[in-house]
């Protein structure tokens, strides 16, 4: 990026993010968009460089003995902690389960660390714990270790949860952005942007009436069926923060291939569409918690699609686009009326517009 100063290699202590731009962390640094990527690419990755980190997948894949494992971590800070269709506890289990599943692994064991704000009603914590228990059972994982910290009132926001997890990868499964090929079909397992809108509908100051419930769900069962059906699933990702557009951009960049999506085929419910129209938001950038994108070789696409549609979490599966050799590193969308446009990564958070 030409607008950023060159990293001064002579001094390991020089901050690689130009101070003139941001002297403080903004919320946008955590939005999953460009600023998040700047932090990851300029601040984090260079300092910890190793071959397991480098693929920047949802989790790291490593070998122990003759078995391959996936290891992933995620923190959950959602507000409010209880929302339509779920709560922070369920999200914390499903989030890490899904990150592991996206590596093609079967999630086995999870850890959980709680940072709790002084004053949180014990009943609220109990609800969260019961919900985690239920979610772990549903996903078939064991919560095997944990930690608890309490911070002063005002130093946290009710409760933050970190979960990490480990899963095992079956022989013959190889999920990696490196395998993406021209012609791959891109499948999504249902209507997008549901979680983000569900959360937004109950955020302070933004309340609006809706029946939209979060789509949070463990995807490992669906992934297991998909992997059984085909060896030609090249990559899978769950488009959480930053939504489908951000995930597709990451994959276009990592594979250096183009991605062409068809606006007409992207499933968005009428409720979500309506909320997005009113708020001036684009569903492509809104978070999902029970959705995955799979890149599948064209000859296996129908088979994988059929398998997905037979699973309760994959009933709404459709092909939304394909990988092309034109415009490398870019996501392009064919609009409903036949025009085309680039779908870029967002800079910060989507901000509701004035009118």
């Amino acid at each position, binding site marked *: 990026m030409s607008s950023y100063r060159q990293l001064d290699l002579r001094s390991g202590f020089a901050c690689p993010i130009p101070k003139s731009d941001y002297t403080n962390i903004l919320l946008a640094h955590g939005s999953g968009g*460009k600023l998040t990527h700047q932090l990851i690419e300029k601040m984090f990755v260079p300092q910890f460089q190793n071959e397991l980190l480098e693929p920047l997948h949802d989790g790291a894949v490593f070998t122990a003995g003759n078995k391959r494992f996936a290891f992933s971590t995620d923190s959950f800070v959602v507000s409010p902690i209880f929302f339509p269709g779920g709560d922070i506890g369920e999200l914390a289990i499903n989030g890490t389960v899904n990150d592991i599943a996206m590596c093609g692994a079967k999630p086995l064991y999870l850890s959980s660390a709680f940072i709790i704000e002084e004053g949180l009603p014990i009943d609220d914590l109990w609800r969260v714990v019961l919900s985690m228990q239920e979610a772990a059972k549903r996903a078939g994982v064991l919560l095997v270790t944990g930690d608890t910290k309490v911070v002063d009132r005002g130093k946290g926001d009710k409760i933050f949860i970190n979960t990490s997890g480990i899963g095992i990868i079956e022989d013959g499964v190889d999920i990696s952005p490196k395998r993406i090929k021209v012609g791959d079909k891109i499948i999504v397992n249902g209507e997008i942007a549901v979680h983000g809108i569900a959360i937004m509908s109950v955020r302070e100051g933004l309340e609006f009436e809706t029946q939209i419930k979060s789509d949070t769900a463990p995807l490992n069962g669906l992934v297991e069926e998909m992997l059984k059906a085909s060896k030609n699933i090249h990559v899978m990702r769950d488009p959480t923060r930053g939504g489908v557009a951000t995930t597709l951009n990451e994959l276009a960049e990592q594979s250096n291939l183009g991605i062409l999506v068809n606006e007409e085929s992207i499933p968005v419910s009428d409720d979500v569409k309506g909320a997005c129209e009113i708020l001036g938001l684009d569903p492509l950038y809104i978070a999902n918690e029970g959705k995955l994108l799979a890149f599948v070789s064209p000859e296996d696409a129908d088979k994988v699609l059929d398998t997905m549609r037979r699973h309760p979490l994959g009933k709404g599966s459709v092909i939304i686009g394909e990988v092309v050799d034109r415009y490398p590193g870019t996501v392009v969308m064919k609009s409903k009326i036949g025009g*085309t446009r680039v779908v870029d990564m967002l800079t910060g958070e989507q901000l*509701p517009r004035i009118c």
Partner: protein
Amino acid sequence: MKYIDEYRDAETAKKYAEMIHKITTREWTMMEICGGQTHAIVKFGIDFLLPKEITLVHGPGCPVCVTPLEIIDKAIVIASRPDVIFTSFGDMLRVPGSKKDLLTVKSEGGDVRIVYSPLDALKVAQQNPNKKVVFFAVGFETTAPANAMAVWQARELGVKNFSALASHVLVPPAMVAILSSPSHLVQAFLAAGHVCTVMGYEDYFPIAGKYKAPIIVTGFEPVDILQGIYMAVKQLEEGRVDVENQYARAVRREGNIPAKKLLADVFEVIDRKWRGIGIIPQSGWGLKPEFADHDAEKIFDVGGIETQESPLCIAGEILQGLKKPHECTAFGTLCKPEHPLGAPMVSSEGACAAYFAYGRYREADGR
């Protein structure tokens, strides 16, 4: 979705595009006033469907873009005060002031909150009687009635800790300013549908007559815009000059009379500076003196602010339709959404941001 999908229908859009091709015999330049229209044109690729003789230039109708730098700087000063809760529509938060934006104020500890309606800001004031709650009341005629209502209710309900930092701008004087400029290129206007929902379109007849420019009140969906373009081209080709209403499902000739009455009660017409353009006489609304108790500019000491624009930014020429965003040397290089030099790169309705977001700086389109 009802009332949206019909106006994004590919067949209908194609039909209008063909009709435009059929009647176009020579070159025409028209300006869409509203940033929402610019956004739709670039998002849906509407300009790709038009004959090459037709040039769309993008108008000044992005409320975020034309809000003067002084007001942004005043907002930043007010929002930084520990006794203030500063409320705003979301897209104002990233607009660069002389030194920083409101999101930075928030990261430095200022209590800056996004609201969807000025009436929500009034609620925040009622819930926080020990704080001064300020709403950033910017925008065109479209957002003004709700802002006026919040101020009016604050007075009626006696919510003394609520004030508005008001900087409203008006469309017709801006159209006159553009048409009066000797270098202007505009032969017809697509007027901003939602502005007319409030104000009606009677004011446009004298403008169309005096400057011989057809004006079509136009909506925001692809089919609306294509139909608006068709109606404009038809007038131009036939040598007619008239004001026509494409957006009849939302706009009446006289506008929204109760809203206009409220606006007249709360606001008075004043000279207003437009960012990137300069002062346009009688082109804005300010709060009337009887609402001084709810006027943030009167309550807080924000005089003597010195402002500084980036010398590279050509926002003025962009907002007057003299240049397109990609003709700016800083576009996509020094000026990007994550590092904007001027407001049109910030708002989702800004022409530069629309060009950037939808990749008009790349050669990657699949035309």
